[in-house]
């Protein structure tokens, strides 16, 4: 009987999932602390059925941010409104939410639509409700309208989310971004796939498929190119690929390891790991001229270089202290200083965009988790609680980390907020998913 119930539950899941995208999110922790927000379904002002829903994108973006918890639309007191002028504060007096998003979609010539939205300050509206009538414009935190093409609904939804998020938090939204990752489908002739998708897993596209491993995708600062490692020639080589033109350039193919690429902030160089002289060392390579410059010189393993935002030094992993730890090397003086001392291992580090903290993989009591360290206070906090965590990549606004982990025996992607409160998993249909890289702002 118990089994039957289980199977039924499983069947329900299977039957209801096909409509989902390749990478759908399961929020595992942190909903309680999220701030409520109301998003009224955008009103369609045309004939026939609406072409697409934008407010669904906005709601899921805000939920995925971990900062907001959109209210159930069925519980909203006014649902057919699309401007602040139609808003009546009295109807909303029992609703507790930071803001209210309303909007409309209107046909605008062939294949085009006029999308309008407004962000209403619900707290202000409620505070002033008893003090007589207030002009709608006084309650507006934001009001915009834009003409979009039929294929831009999701994209513009993310744009609206960016605006709403920034208005309410003061932090730039990172909803109009992408992720790159590697999918391995064992048993296929070419099991290794380099993929990109919108940050939420929609619009997944394959950039490369190979019979041999693909590793370490990383974005150029303009979000136009990816550097990655490919074993297609039976050795590790670094390629740079334009994601729009598909043009590929072989950048580094020395003897031994060519690995762990990381674009310089100006996009002209890569920091890489080469073992051509024996052991893995950090180098920089000019993408255009292929000129290399050796940065580290030690008999231990040096790898995983990553740039400080000012481009003047690199963070890297070294075993020179006996176990992998994070170090900083100045590109001007080649002077090396150790950054981490806590925990058994600390590796795979990167500096957050604000330059104030560092995200990396920490090993404590044999467990590998994602951690953050404040650079000024050296305070370290373990963020994740999943298994075999690796490859952390920080969102361009510094609020979230996407990383590779293991769930139910499979490699999957997960996300954790940089304060550790919000945790989510991004399950997949087929194959193992790993090496995520979050794009810059697009």
């Amino acid at each position, binding site marked *: 009987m118990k089994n039957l119930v289980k199977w039924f539950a499983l069947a329900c899941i299977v039957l209801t999932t096909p409509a989902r995208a390749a990478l759908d999110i399961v929020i595992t922790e942190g909903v309680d602390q999220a701030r409520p927000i109301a998003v009224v379904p955008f009103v369609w002002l045309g004939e026939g059925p609406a072409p697409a829903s934008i407010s669904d994108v906005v709601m899921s973006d805000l939920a995925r941010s971990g900062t907001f918890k959109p209210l159930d639309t069925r519980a909203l007191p006014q649902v057919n409104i699309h401007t602040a002028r139609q808003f009546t504060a009295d109807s909303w007096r029992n609703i507790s939410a930071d803001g209210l998003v309303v909007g409309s979609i209107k046909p605008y010539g062939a294949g085009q639509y006029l999308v309008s939205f407004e962000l209403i300050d619900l707290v202000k509206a409620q505070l002033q409700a008893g003090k007589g009538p207030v002009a709608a414009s006084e309650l507006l935190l934001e009001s915009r309208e834009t003409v979009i093409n039929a294929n831009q609904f999701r994209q513009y939804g993310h744009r609206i989310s960016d605006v709403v998020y920034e208005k309410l938090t003061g932090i730039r939204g990172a909803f109009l971004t992408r992720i790159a990752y590697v999918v391995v489908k064992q048993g296929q002739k070419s099991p290794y796939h380099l993929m990109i998708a919108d940050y939420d897993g929609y619009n997944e596209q394959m950039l490369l498929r190979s019979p041999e491993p693909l590793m370490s995708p990383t974005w150029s600062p303009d979000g136009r190119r990816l550097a990655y490692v490919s074993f297609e020639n039976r050795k590790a080589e670094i390629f740079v690929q334009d994601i729009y033109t598909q043009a590929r350039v072989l950048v580094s193919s020395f003897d031994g*390891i060519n690995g762990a690429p990381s674009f310089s902030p100006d996009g002209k160089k890569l920091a890489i790991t080469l073992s051509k002289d024996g052991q893995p060392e950090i180098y920089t390579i000019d993408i255009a001229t292929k000129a290399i410059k050796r940065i580290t010189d030690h008999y231990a393993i040096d790898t995983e270089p990553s740039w400080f935002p000012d481009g003047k030094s690199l963070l890297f992993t070294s075993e020179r202290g006996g176990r992998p730890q994070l170090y900083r090397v100045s590109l001007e003086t080649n002077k090396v200083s150790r950054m981490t001392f806590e925990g058994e291992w600390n590796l795979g580090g990167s500096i957050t965009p604000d330059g104030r903290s560092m995200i990396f*993989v920490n090993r404590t009591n044999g467990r590998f988790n994602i951690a953050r360290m404040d650079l000024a206070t050296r305070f370290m906090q373990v963020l994740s609680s999943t298994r075999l965590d690796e490859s952390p990549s920080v969102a361009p606004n510094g609020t979230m980390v996407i990383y590779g982990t293991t769930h139910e025996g499979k490699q999957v992607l997960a996300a954790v907020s940089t304060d550790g409160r919000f945790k989510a998993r991004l399950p997949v249909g087929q194959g193992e998913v790993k090496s995520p890289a979050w794009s810059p702002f697009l």
Partner: protein
Amino acid sequence: MDLNKLFKAMMVAVPLMALGACSSTSDSETDASGSTSGSSSSQYGNGGIETGGAGAVLSPAEQQRLKEQELRRQNIIYFDFDRSEVQTENAEILLAHGNYLVENPNVRVLIEGHADERGTPEYNIALGERRAKAIAKYLQGMGVQPSQMSVVSYGEEKPLDFSRSDSGFAKNRRGVLVY
């Protein structure tokens, strides 16, 4: 290009021939040590005559060669967690490969280094390379020419065991000799 293909084909064919030789020799060894009754050609029609045979008596050198042939079928060397030293229990296997490579200076071997899934992929690439190089250095110590050996690290990208258990990790921490 064609020559290269031929060379690759030979690389496959040579070990296969060695395997074939191995299995047939071990049969004859059994014959030599066990009974000889199985070799009768016919019980009737030859005037009731039965013939028997004995396996060839192997010189110590031949026996050693056959033993090494057998050992060379083991082409995986396992490592401890985060370590790249060649363990002494692998000495016999590596001796077999080393002697073969010294006797056949035209044979080339690719040494793959692998790691388990713990740690980061990039660190594991470095670790895998160090393991492969430790094997290469060991063989070089036996007289194998560096030009006969090439090294590639796949880090944690090509696990043998996908269980992500301790025993699975142990199977994935390996060096592989590919002829």
